[in-house]
């Protein structure tokens, strides 16, 4: 767009006012009223990173409060607000927009399309999600009192268990801010999911049948299906909660015959698929990156698709493993234990496939690959603690302890965040035309990994020793001090790593090495166009005859289509 409007402007002279206007109109065109999937994708990722900083600071403050026993750095009320805002922000305004950004940026490029199927719907999704985030944080200005639930930021936890959220116990507006902002984020995610499915199923370039579609796009289709099926339970429960709070309905009102456990069923009916909604895009990045850096095609492509689809389906039937401590009937405990362990099977298939892809490959240990390998280790460990927690009696002992906190931070930082950094390191050259520094990237990587382990490894043991979640302080002499002390230092190391990442990005934007079209010698379509891609994406599309169209182009003597069934 810039390249079209600038020559015209120059033709009309160079007055300062005019240049200013053209700067602003260009800015508004490209970053406000745009419907271009690449701009919206980057905007999603930028917004996610801003909220990531906010939620990261909240996490750091939580850790500072817990650094010493009997600490008074944060009041109990502020502590409750902190873990509520940290969790809500990380899930709905970091994780969801980040994966929406990746999907938006990559899917049209990978399938050889000009844009998403519904560009204007796409812009609506972005702005409604962003509005939700702004609404959540504006709750800080609605402060009306320092007592629990009276005002300021939400303090009911990201899970917002009933009946704490009822008007009787949370009389202020903070819980309404939580409900409405999360609802907006859900609407944004839903329209994104519709858009992803319509794009992947309807916009593929000639020759790209579903069986040749990149695995990243396949996995985002599974994620979209999950979003469509699993977000409405949360939205429905939130509508019910609003009716309770504003119209005196009794859905979760335990003073009438309302049932608080029903909220937990509805919430986790959303909440468990949600963690797969967050991690499968991570799987998707890893699945694209590992083959390129191992110089081998993905091992077991069909099995990968099958495993993704079965994770998508099984994950809808495991929600009550978050509720063992409620006291479910034995048959329910057995069902949900078995179903939860069953998810480990397709996940295990994927881990084997990624390792088999690397096996015998000529591995290039560049930054994106390092993140992928770290992901494999962390996710395996997180999966193993997950299977431990899937066993109901074990969960009765450790549910709501720091063991659970350590487990899901292993999946989300060790798993998801590593894959997102892998994705950024891998596709940054495509989006900006500049290479990130390998040296800074490796500092970022190692500090992040060390900081992550210092933070969360010990918390497993603190949890095993009985330290509960969501407590604002704890007495000395329980054996928890050392783990908490070092955990807080781990956060400081992670913060330094993030600063190096920011420095790396800014430095690369200003003086990074030119990337060229295809810096990694990769095989999917996005590398066939320029970096950054023009507004129309592709001047000429390569012919697609296999799942690795660029391999066929680069190796006409030994193309993939000779070996693939079409």
């Amino acid at each position: 767009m810039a390249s079209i409007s600038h020559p015209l402007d120059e033709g009309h002279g160079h007055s300062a006012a005019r240049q200013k206007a053209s700067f602003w109109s260009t800015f508004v065109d490209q970053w406000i009223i745009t419907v271009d999937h690449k701009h919206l994708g980057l905007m999603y990722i930028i917004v996610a990173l801003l909220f990531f900083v906010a939620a990261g600071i909240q996490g750091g403050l939580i850790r500072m409060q817990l650094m010493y026993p009997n600490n008074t750095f944060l009041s109990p009320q502020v502590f409750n607000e902190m873990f509520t805002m940290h969790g809500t922000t990380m899930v709905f305004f970091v994780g969801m927009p980040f994966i929406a950004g990746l999907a938006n940026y990559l899917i049209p490029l990978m399938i050889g399309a000009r844009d998403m199927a519904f560009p204007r719907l796409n812009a609506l999704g972005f702005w409604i999600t962003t509005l939700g985030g702004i609404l959540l944080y504006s709750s800080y200005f609605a402060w009306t009192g320092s007592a629990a639930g009276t005002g300021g930021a939400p303090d009911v936890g990201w899970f917002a268990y009933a009946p704490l959220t009822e008007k009787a116990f949370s009389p202020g507006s903070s819980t309404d801010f939580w409900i409405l902002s999360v609802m907006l984020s859900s609407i944004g995610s839903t329209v994104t999911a519709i858009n992803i499915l319509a794009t992947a199923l309807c916009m593929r370039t000639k020759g790209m049948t579903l069986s040749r579609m990149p695995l990243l796009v396949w996995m985002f289709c599974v994620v979209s299906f999950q979003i469509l099926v699993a977000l409405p339970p949360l939205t429905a429960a939130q509508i019910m909660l609003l009716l309770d709070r504003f119209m005196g309905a009794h859905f979760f009102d335990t003073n009438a015959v309302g049932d608080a456990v029903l909220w937990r069923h509805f919430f986790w009916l959303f909440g468990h698929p949600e963690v797969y909604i967050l991690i499968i895009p991570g799987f998707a990045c890893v699945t694209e990156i590992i083959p390129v850096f191992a110089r081998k095609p993905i091992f077991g492509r069909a099995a990968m698709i099958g495993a993704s689809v079965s994770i998508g389906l099984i994950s809808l039937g495991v929600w009550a493993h978050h509720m063992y401590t409620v006291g479910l009937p034995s048959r329910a405990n057995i069902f949900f234990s078995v179903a939860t362990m069953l998810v480990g099977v397709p996940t295990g298939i994927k881990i084997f496939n990624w390792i088999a892809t690397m096996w015998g490959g000529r591995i290039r240990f560049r930054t994106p690959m390092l993140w992928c390998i770290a992901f494999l280790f962390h996710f395996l460990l997180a999966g193993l603690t997950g299977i431990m927690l899937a066993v109901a009696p074990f969960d009765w002992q450790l549910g709501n302890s720091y063991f659970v906190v350590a487990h899901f931070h292993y999946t989300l930082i060790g798993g998801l965040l590593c894959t997102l950094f892998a994705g950024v390191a891998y596709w940054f050259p495509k989006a900006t035309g500049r290479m990130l520094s390998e040296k800074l990237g490796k500092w970022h990587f190692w500090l992040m990994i060390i900081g992550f382990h210092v933070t969360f490894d010990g918390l497993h043991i603190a949890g095993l020793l009985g330290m509960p979640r969501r407590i604002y302080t704890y007495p000395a002499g329980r054996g928890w001090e050392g783990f908490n002390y070092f955990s807080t230092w781990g956060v400081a190391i992670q913060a330094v790593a993030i600063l190096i990442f920011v420095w790396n990005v800014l430095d690369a934007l200003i003086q990074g090495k030119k990337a060229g079209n295809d810096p990694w010698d990769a095989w999917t379509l996005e590398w066939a166009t320029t970096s950054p891609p023009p507004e129309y994406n592709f001047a000429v599309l390569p012919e697609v005859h296999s799942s690795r169209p660029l391999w066929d182009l680069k190796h006409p003597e030994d193309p993939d289509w000779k070996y693939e069934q079409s």
Partner: protein
Amino acid sequence: MSTAASLPMNPPIDDARNFDKGKVGLISLILTEVSLFSIFVTAYIFYIGKSASGPQPVDVLTVPVWATICLLSSSLTAELAVRAVRQDARSRFLAFLGATILLGAEFMRQTAVEWNKLINTDHLTIATNVFGTTYYSLVGLHATHVVVGLILLLVAFLAALSGANVGKHEHRLHLLSWYWHFVDVIWIVVFTVVYVVGR
């Protein structure tokens, strides 16, 4: 030359076998709506017979036969309207679309009459007991979808009346009829749960 001759020739390029994006988009929307309704239906079923005080369903609900006949036949007229577009029969299209809107509006009028009776005669509101809570939320959610459908149908009707080229929008009208059928099918579920199972 000799190497070029030994290169394998690219096979003819396949069709991508793409689907229609309007259909995929609308089916996705319907999927997510079904999930939304299923939660309200679950809540309704969960709270059947649990109201300790206040009016019970069997005391106050009467089976809305006429409203149901109206809504179900509006699906038929919607389908006939779409067929009329395909056959380029403009006045027949307007007649069937108008009939669809009238039938939908009659359904809403029946709902209004029923709610008026429940609120003013039987003193059942959303705050009375869990029956009121679940009844008004489930039936109200469905009624909201009927209203959205009616607005869309009305837009199509007014556009057609003011001389829009109806044939050009055949695909959109077709998708709109799918949405209307979906609202209809949801009513069958709501009807069964509220007026048959829960009464």
